[in-house]
């Protein structure tokens, strides 16, 4: 597939992961990649379903995170996130062989892996709980991309369950921490 979407998704995941205002942009790229892939495959139901779940999970999370106070990343966090993300991208490019893997083209698979790894990295290096949550949500979007394109139904169901769990914890736990009812 000659679409520039996977490349854009990789760049957005590496540079913007862990920023709450970047989450809708990243989720939009994931949805577009899924819909573009749905046009190419014989069974478009799973990619469309995954895109629907990305929208359904990201929209309330962005709304909730916007109401919490966030500390912008300090230079150390930025350097760790972007530098580590670039290194993980190079590793993913080297590790994924050329050619088709099931129904997934190589750029799509690399984009999904980079989105997952960059999100997990952002959740590890960001000190702000809002940034950590945004990183995890970005990684979940990457997992949803992987599940929608090449995974089995069990992976898609697991990703949806994880998204529901993230929403529950974010709305219960992060509000307590961010509003000062619990020590940060």
């Amino acid at each position: 597939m000659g679409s520039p979407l996977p490349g854009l998704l990789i760049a957005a995941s590496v540079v913007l992961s862990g920023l709450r205002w970047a989450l809708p942009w990243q989720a939009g790229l994931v949805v577009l990649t899924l819909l573009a892939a749905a046009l190419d495959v014989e069974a478009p139901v799973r990619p469309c379903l995954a895109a629907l779940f990305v929208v359904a999970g990201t929209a309330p999370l962005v709304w909730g995170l916007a109401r919490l106070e966030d500390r912008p990343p300090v230079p150390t966090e930025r350097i760790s996130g972007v530098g580590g993300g670039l290194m993980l991208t190079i590793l993913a490019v080297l590790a994924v062989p050329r050619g088709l893997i099931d129904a997934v083209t190589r750029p799509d698979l690399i984009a999904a892996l980079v989105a997952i790894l960059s999100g997990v990295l952002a959740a590890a290096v960001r000190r702000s709980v809002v940034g950590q949550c945004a990183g995890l949500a970005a990684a979940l979007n990457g997992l949803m991309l992987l599940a929608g394109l090449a995974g089995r139904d069990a992976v898609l169901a697991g990703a949806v369950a994880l998204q529901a769990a993230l929403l529950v914890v974010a709305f219960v736990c992060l509000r307590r921490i961010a509003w000062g009812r619990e020590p940060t």
Partner: protein
Amino acid sequence: MSIPPVSLPVLMPLALCWPFLSMGVLAACSPASARAAGVGLSAVGLGLAALAVALRSVWPGTPFAVPPGALGLLLPLPLLALFLACLSADMAPGRRGTGVLMHGLAGGAAVATACADPLSGAVAVGGVAMLVALATAVTRGAARAGWDLFRLSLSGILLAVPGAALLAASDAAGRLEGLGGLLLTVGLGTVAGLGPAAPVVLAAGDAVAPMALAPVMTAIPVLRHLAQGQDRIGVMALGLVTLWLMALSIRVAPPERRGRLSVGLMIGLAAVAAGAGGGAGLAGLVALLLSVALMGPLARQAGPDRHGPWDGSLAPLIHSPFLPFGGVVLTLVALCDVAPMLVLPMAVGVVVGSPLPVGGAVRTGWLGRGVTAMLLGGLVVLVLRGWR
């Protein structure tokens, strides 16, 4: 002469579903009888699981079966830990929810241990870890610990599931298979609190009671899957890092926390044994995880302000001629075959992480003496049969 397996298709579904049925029964019974009911139900669950292992039972049409070889002994270990926890727990009426949750955790761990498919197993392990993290996160006063645990578990699952999916891809080969194995190892290790994740899990364990059993419940299925994986070096490295993190923490920890940290140290050792593989490695893995299941529920009882059935640090048990020591020896034997360079760092780590008890000998209660007798009996079995 080998005994042919007895076909009893109901046994495995019953053994796996029993803890979840127990949850419903416990939630419905009166507070006065909750403790006795918990002990009885967990004993029945343990008996069913032991019977399923003895008969090598399978659940037809599903990936659930008793793990092959010596790994089959891991299946009843979560239920053994649950039974001991029920025996030793002080079930105040306000803690009934905790007791109910512990049965669900043990059931989830047994299901994940019995699952032969790495992908479904990773999802099941993730479910167990997420249940613990959710329970902690929504507990009043534990939001920060719960969030850290949730972040850790979710990160581990987000790495493990794509790793298992890549491994399961029909035409995956070479580097892609290597990447899948690495992601699965690191992800499952993170879920189980191995490697750099260990301090987070053990620190969160101070928050609420179900967390005390969380490392036990996640480590057993995780190491069962890692022992059959392909990334042996990665598993050994995770185990060694965990071993040293725990050993250094034990040196500076107050006496009341050493029991919990000793359990973490044994889980790290078990990961080294799982990575080493072979007959001795698998026997060592089973011995160490059996020790973890026996001592994990009691470790949270330790402390100067607690006078439960087990008082004092568990760290000296590593040095004692008991089951953990047998597991250490078997792990060393397995390492000599596979990676002799790692023998020295492992042995030094065990010595560093086993300080002498503070303020005299370790005192034991009736349950502690019973567990000690079982550990000693285990050593005899290991000596007689474990080397083969």
